[in-house]
């Protein structure tokens, strides 16, 4: 069997990659995708830790998080669509009406 630590390390790597991508990428949809990766890293961590603790709680929590992520995707894509209709672009450097 693959040791649980490997999965934890994978989830940390995914989380950090997502966080880096959020700051590096200049595209709203890609930034949103990187957030989804971070959420899924958390899901992976939950499953791994539930497995190592021999309890089902963590696996059930994952369902809640998936639902929340879906709701977030719905509202987020709607907002990105709204931005695209107004500005004809979804590059984040073009969104700079307010500053200071």
């Amino acid at each position, binding site marked *: 069997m693959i040791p649980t630590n490997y999965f934890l390390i994978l989830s940390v790597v995914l989380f950090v990659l997502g966080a880096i991508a959020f700051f590096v990428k200049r595209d709203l949809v890609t930034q949103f995708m990187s*957030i989804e990766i*971070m959420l899924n890293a958390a899901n992976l961590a939950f499953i791994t830790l539930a497995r190592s603790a021999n309890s089902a709680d963590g696996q059930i*929590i994952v369902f809640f998080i998936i639902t*929340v992520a879906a709701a977030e995707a719905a*509202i987020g894509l709607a*907002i990105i669509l709204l931005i695209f209709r107004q500005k004809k672009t979804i590059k984040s450097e073009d969104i700079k*009406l*307010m500053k200071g």
Partner: protein
Amino acid sequence: MNSFFALSPLLIIVFASLLVLLLDVFLKKENKNYLAYISLIFLVICGFICIKFWDKNYSYFNGNLILDNLSLFFIFILALATGFVILLSMKYISFQDVNYGEFYALLLLALSGVAIMLSSSDLLIIFLGLEVLSICSYALAGLKRTDEKSSEAAIKYFLLGSFATAFLVYGLALLYGSSHSTNISSIINFFVTESDLSIMALIGLGLVIIGFGFKIAVVPFHMWTPDVYQGAPTPITAFFSVVPKAVGFIVFLRIFTPYWKNALNTQAIFWILWVICVLTMVVGNLVALRQTNLKRILAYSSIAHAGYLLIAILARDNSSLVFYLTVYLFMNIGAFAAVIALSRKGKEYLELEDYAGIGFKYPWIGVTFSIFLLSLAGFPPTGGFLAKFYVFSTAVRQDLLPLVIIGVLASLISVFYYLRIIVYMYMKEPAREIEIAIENPALFLVLFFCLYGVLQLGLYPRNILVLINQAISSFF
């Protein structure tokens, strides 16, 4: 006491929002005000239930949903805040052409998320309530669909908000991994009993603090605040500045009260919060100095107030934290009400120059706005003074003198930008003619209530302090 009644405040709010959403289909555009009246009626019922359930300690779902006095107090207070926001929006949303039924429905749904967060002691449930609140907030921020600033506010709020959510969830996973539970008391128990804490648990707690830090807008997690506050419709800004902040602090209170009391090694978390607190007060007040947009000034002022509230958390002083939040609600919503008053169809006046001469032209708005600003700055005899006084005096007693000195200096800085608005209102010649729609009884009702609240809490706070002490003691 295990009882189905524990669900009733929550169910009433959710039912009201669904009813509003349904009725919206059948109502003509000029009759949308009825939706506001319906929402208000249900909020009154909810408040009435909160009063009825006082001291009953109903719980449901095996204690995962508890209506202790603390949560009842805050459900009441935040339902009141939502009621104020609805009253403020009645004219505003037809002026700004956002009078859809979704407006009230989303506000009520956001409030239901707040009720979930307040009445749970399980971090997973608190997270779900937070998401209900946040997802509604993202939509509310972007409700002015033709306004590019509003959409920009929505996307910024959405991206940074869900970024923070990811941190919160990951922190939750790590806390679950180390303590095998998501219940606050068992997590804290784990922190208490384990003499050799794993790095995983500490990182988990840190990530959870970051996640909530975004929501209550403390430096360095405040970047979204001014932009979102500026772009969102103004009554919604009033909502954002009060409601998520209050809930975030109540969650902090629920986490840290047992933590400070019992945990063996609180130093690391204490100093992290200490640094955040100092940064919040200093940065919030300094950056506010060079703002010229009223909504941005109030945004930075709300960041600074989060700093003072953190002092109360660090001083382990729950009753002055609750008192501060109560006063903050009245003075901040009052200030936003005055800003909303200066608008007419299709136009808002938000720049500092627009306020020149307002004090004499519209004496009522001028006087009330000045009182709210003085209260925010902390002048006696307003509630803002007493709130700051309680927080600072217990902090001194808890040996947090450096923090208090920084706090007092920071609020001295804040006096400058609050007074600058008053100076503009009374001592500057108006540079341009402004014209506002003055007949707005709902808004003046809110101004009056907030004025009453600020003065009552400043001059005669005894009754409310008794209530707050009952709320706090029930939660131990």
